[in-house]
């Protein structure tokens, strides 16, 4: 679909299989491939660098221990990784009393906003960031809240005042928007 990013040195499916078999080099390769993307997600959720660093360590320790539990039939490796990242970050926020189930901060109080921040200075990433920046605001916010902040549909419905069904259909519209923009981009 796109050649925006450097090809992985090894197929992530294969890397996860090797990690499951106890291959530490595979874990190091997996880290090289995905740590920055996961750190970006975690940093957007916990916002404090020292917390984010702890969380990132915990994520890869969990990956090391639970790689056998990865089921390729249920999704791509990165989807599995980002789910672990999100859950680990939510746990960290809860244990720090920074986030309770059902509570959500006003969207505009988030420090890092998709398409606007300058955390990633990589040129290729900047192109995609520009794409994300072209999304309609409500779409970008939905993707940000759901994917990068880890809020449930219930949380988002409360935050936006939209009915649950509308949150669902708008999230789909947001993803279609993103896919369309990426297609045009490539």
């Amino acid at each position, binding site marked *: 679909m796109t050649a925006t990013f450097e090809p992985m040195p090894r197929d992530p499916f294969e890397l996860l299989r090797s990690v499951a078999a106890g291959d530490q080099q595979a874990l190091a390769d997996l880290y090289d491939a995905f740590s920055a993307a996961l750190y970006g997600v975690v940093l957007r959720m916990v916002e404090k660098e020292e917390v984010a660093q702890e969380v990132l360590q915990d994520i890869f320790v969990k990956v090391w221990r639970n790689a*056998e539990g990865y089921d390729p039939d249920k999704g791509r490796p990165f989807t599995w990784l980002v789910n672990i990242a999100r859950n680990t970050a939510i746990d960290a926020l809860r244990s720090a009393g920074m986030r309770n189930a059902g509570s959500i901060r006003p969207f505009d109080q988030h420090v890092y906003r998709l398409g606007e921040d300058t955390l990633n200075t990589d040129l290729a990433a900047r192109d995609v960031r520009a794409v994300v920046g072209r999304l309609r605001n409500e779409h970008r916010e939905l993707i940000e809240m759901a994917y990068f902040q880890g809020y449930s549909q219930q949380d988002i419905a409360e935050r936006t005042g939209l009915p649950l069904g509308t949150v669902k259909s708008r999230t789909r519209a947001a993803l279609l928007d993103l896919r369309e923009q990426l297609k045009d981009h490539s």
Partner: protein
Amino acid sequence: MNAEELIGSGSLEAYVMGQLHGEEAALVERLRSSDARVRAEIEAIELALEQAAMAAAVVPPQSLKEAVLARVTQPDPRLGRIGPVAPVGRAAEVASYWRWLAAASVAALIGSAYFNYRMMGELREVRQQLVRMEDERSVLAQELQVQRTALYEANDQLAVVLAPASRTVELSGTANAPQAKARVYWDESSRSVHLAVAELPSAPAGKQYQLWALLDGKPIDAGVFDATGRVLWSMKEVNGAQAFAVTIEDAGGSPTPTLETMVLMGQV
């Protein structure tokens, strides 16, 4: 719900973003394995979000990678590989980690307590040793002072005995103590008087020997001394004397001699 409806519902997006649980997630997974369109749609959503995540990537500090690799290579019990862990296994995993941590803490506490106990014992012993050594040092210092004083005194006495101006007066025992013998060194120029006991029985309890200078028939007190304890006694100064005599008096001396107790006598 058929595949078409599922794709249009927004459930697949929610599924990929980790928002679906239980029944809803199970439905998606069922149709995913049975329907190629659902599979393709999910993959497209995953790829789009993956690209968004890559675009939002932030490179973590280099030290983090080393920390991660150190944590998985350490022979640390809580990092032991325990096989596949279902998401619901998290609580047990956390509990076992806390159990391990608690056990390790207790072990560390016991170890630390024992170490402290040992150290306290050793510290107490070292302190006692130090006090003992300080005592010994103090005793030795006093002894040294005594010896030094004795040496000075001996030198002084030697000087007295050897002084050219010194006159030697031999005292002989009277009928009260025929064996008694003593010698008086009298320096007429400095008027100093020293007495060396050669042979003299100990004085009775509560009594001391007293030296008298006899000048023109009058006894002049020259101080008290004992039969033992010193080689040479330093006595009171004497201006002039024709003879010296020793009597036994009450301890501390008497203003006038008790002639009946005279034990030594010698003419200058």
